């Protein structure tokens, strides 16, 4: 009897295991990144043209049926917005929704190479850099049909400048006056010349909103009741459940948005989100983990799409405490850091190693001359010996966020690489708030963070690094006054070539410090239903929802 029982139990466990693993066509829970052969990243998707109407039937050939489109697209997001007010927004968590409602004067092109007009058709900057004149698109209206007036522009931009609850004040604090001296012409004057200002104009806090609507609903309700000029307006928001958008009938761009309704499902678990994509509950899953792309591609009704990003994962080393307070040790470890291997193993090929902290999308501002040395573990070991260390008897601790597996994965590969040079790296995952506290107080030794630049100017990132009061030199504790002075000069330098030269030089200095070490720039990976057409994603992760179509 006992033997039969044991056999039955064993059989039950085996069956459970098999059911859990499933066939190659069935989804399995996402596994942590394991060493895998790198796959070639997909080329960025180009927007598909909508199907042309069916040609009239000729006596000889049968008529081709017209393509029918669904009026609703459902997008599955892992995080809900916190605020739908542009001046409360915290970043991409909110802007991915707000971008459907609010618009800017200008916006980066999808490849990040230049600024393009959004509400402005064109613009001019005065020679002294203090006056920006925008030629606005005619007859701009909010989603309730009311005209966008000078008062709305003034109120919106002054609020961006003055509202103390915003975390984007540095991008708007230089605004002096806003006026419309003539119809469809907006003039913004600055308190001081600020060359990145045109890039700042695409910041989430510099949008036009309806003053009348704000006064009607009140400040508290405005967080959940937005109104803008964008392609959609929000009709319902149930926090952590879903968000509904409907096409703005007064949108300035005729023919857009192409799909009448958008719905966002908030699905906090990646496995569940994939199942919803597979089952057709959602049509699009943005920022799907790299480890799930193979499953997506294997499904006959889905496909994966990748888009280049400006998101760079960066390791920061604290120069105020041992062991990373020694620049020779930091430089030696560069030779033991194989970024390509990290990108292959962790990002499964959906990333490329980078040497500079500034994304390559920033064009001239990106210093293409900065290159990492060839990986040479023996050289790294020798450099450590020359610096007075005994390989095998030195080590340090790297703190990573416990809630984001990618950081632990990067640290794990680093650990194995640095071990070849005789440096023992201990990985210590911490909960995010505790990690922030630790790095802010400079009590960490090393950690890994990421930065995504949405505009076309690296001023925000450089400010974060170089202005010591903002982040202690990105939590490295390196107080370089010369570098900081160079940053402030670059913020005031109107001459483009000189500014480019300054910023390129700053990157060389940051690189030579060996304490801010960019690792890889990852692609955005999206899981997409085959019914979806026209998807494009900017390098700042802005989705062209207004151009999406879904076939029936």
């Amino acid at each position, binding site marked *: *009897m006992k033997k039969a*029982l044991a056999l*039955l*139990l064993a059989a*039950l*466990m085996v069956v*459970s295991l098999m*059911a*859990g693993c*499933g066939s190659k066509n*069935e*989804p399995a*829970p996402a596994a942590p990144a394991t060493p895998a052969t790198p796959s070639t990243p997909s080329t960025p998707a180009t927007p598909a043209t909508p199907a042309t109407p069916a040609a009239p039937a000729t006596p000889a050939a049968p008529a081709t049926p017209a393509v029918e489109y669904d009026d609703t697209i459902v997008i599955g997001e892992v995080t809900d917005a*916190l*605020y739908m007010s542009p001046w*409360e927004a*915290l*970043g991409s968590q909110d802007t991915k929704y707000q971008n459907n409602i609010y618009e800017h004067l200008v916006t980066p092109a999808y490849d990040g190479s230049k600024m393009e007009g959004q509400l402005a058709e064109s613009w001019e900057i005065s020679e002294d850099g203090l006056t920006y004149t925008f030629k606005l698109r005619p007859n701009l209206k909010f989603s309730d049909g009311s005209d966008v007036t000078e008062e709305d522009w003034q109120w919106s931009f002054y609020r961006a400048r003055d509202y*103390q*609850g915003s*975390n984007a*004040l*540095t991008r708007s604090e230089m605004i002096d006056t806003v006026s419309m001296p003539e119809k469809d012409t907006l003039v913004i004057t600055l308190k001081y010349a600020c060359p990145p200002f045109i890039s700042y104009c695409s910041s989430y806090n510099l949008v036009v909103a309806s003053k009348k609507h704000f006064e009607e609903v009140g400040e*508290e309700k405005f*967080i*959940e009741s937005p109104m803008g000029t964008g392609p959609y307006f929000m009709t319902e928001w*149930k*926090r*952590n*459940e*879903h968000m509904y958008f409907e096409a703005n009938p007064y949108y300035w761009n005729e023919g857009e948005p192409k799909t009448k309704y958008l719905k966002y*499902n*908030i*699905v*906090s*678990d990646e*496995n*569940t989100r994939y*199942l*919803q994509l*597979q*089952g057709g*509950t959602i049509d699009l899953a943005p920022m799907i983990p790299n480890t799930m792309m193979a499953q997506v591609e294997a499904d006959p009704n889905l496909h994966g799409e990748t888009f280049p990003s400006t998101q760079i994962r960066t390791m920061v080393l604290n120069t105020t405490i041992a062991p990373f307070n020694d620049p020779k040790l930091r430089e030696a470890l560069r030779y033991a850091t194989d970024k390509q291997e990290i990108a292959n193993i962790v990002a499964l090929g959906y990333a490329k190693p980078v040497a500079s902290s500034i994304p390559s999308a920033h064009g001239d501002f990106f210093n293409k001359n900065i290159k990492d040395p060839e990986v040479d573990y023996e050289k790294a070991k020798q450099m450590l010996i020359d610096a007075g260390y005994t390989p095998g008897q030195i080590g340090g601790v790297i703190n990573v966020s416990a*809630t984001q597996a990618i950081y632990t994965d990067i640290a794990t590969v680093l650990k194995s690489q640095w071990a070849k040079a005789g440096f023992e790296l201990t990985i210590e995952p911490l*909960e*995010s*708030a*505790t*990690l*922030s*506290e*630790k*790095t*802010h107080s400079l009590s960490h030794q090393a950690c890994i*963070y990421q*930065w995504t630049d949405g505009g076309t100017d690296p001023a925000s990132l450089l400010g*974060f690094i170089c202005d010591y*009061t*903002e*982040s202690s030199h990105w939590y490295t504790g390196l107080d370089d006054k010369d570098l900081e002075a160079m940053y402030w000069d670059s913020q005031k330098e109107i001459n483009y070539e000189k500014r480019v030269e300054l910023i390129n030089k700053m990157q060389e200095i940051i690189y030579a410090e060996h304490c801010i070490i960019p690792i890889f720039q990852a692609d955005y990976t999206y899981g997409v239903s085959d019914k979806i057409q026209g998807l494009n994603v900017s390098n700042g992760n802005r989705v062209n929802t207004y151009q999406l179509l879904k076939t029936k």
Partner: protein
Amino acid sequence: MAQLNYLFKRLLQMIPVLFFVTVLIFTMIRLIPGDPARTLLGEMALEEDVQRLRELMGLNKPYTTQYFIWMKGILTGDLGRSLVYKMPVKDMILPRLRITVGLTFLSMIFAVILSFPLGYMAGKNKDKFGDQFIRVTALAAISMPSFWVGLLLMILFGVKLHWFPVGGWGETPAEQFRSLVLPALTSCLMTTALLMRNLRNSVVDISILDYVDFARSKGITETRVSTMHILRNALITTVTLLMMRMAWMLGGSVIIETVFSLPGMGKLMIDSIFGRDYAVVQVLVLAFSLLVILMNLITDILYSFLDPRVAL
């Protein structure tokens, strides 16, 4: 009258307990490293933005002032404002309470429907094949991780068969009920297994007692012996266990809510702790403490009804 006195005494005893809980949670949440303003603004927050937000959040006030402001609000029905969501805590909790309570009750119903008959059958057929099979199944149910079971159920009943939604919370009452079925089935597994084993053991123990034989010898029908003498006595500990599990589940199951994308209390609690949303954590812990105290009280009262020998 005695019962009313007992009830009144227990309710009065709640007050110092709850007061102690407020002091404890207020202090403990602030001892955890991590600043709410910095956590909200993220790792790339500028220092000046963090300091400005701390001021707006009232975090620069002395701790005693913060505590009294909070307590004054609690006593006047104002549960405070969420530091993260910038909305009244009451407005956040009530919709989620509905989901968690619904999930808990449905889970308990499934657990009772499954465990009571199976536990009783296993006890009445001690050591026979049925008993062995039920016990092994209970062991397997306890052993399987709930998130994995949940995913399997979603794949089978959601993706393949389309009988139930693949996660999420519905919009109509019918959809919302359907949204709860798979999570409740997943959630009830552990409780079912525990109740089944408990009831089975109780039935086994009680079946061999003298008064059961005496009842049979008096000519009482087997059905009556089974229900009034065996089952009723066996249920005493099982119902106690059921009420305790219910109190635990009302605290919310983070894993179930995350896997099935249900915006319930458990997920809110864990997100609020990670986000250092002091106001929400404080109210939730206080609410859970109150629920546990009330569930214990109901259990004691129910106990006295089930077992007349127990006096309140």
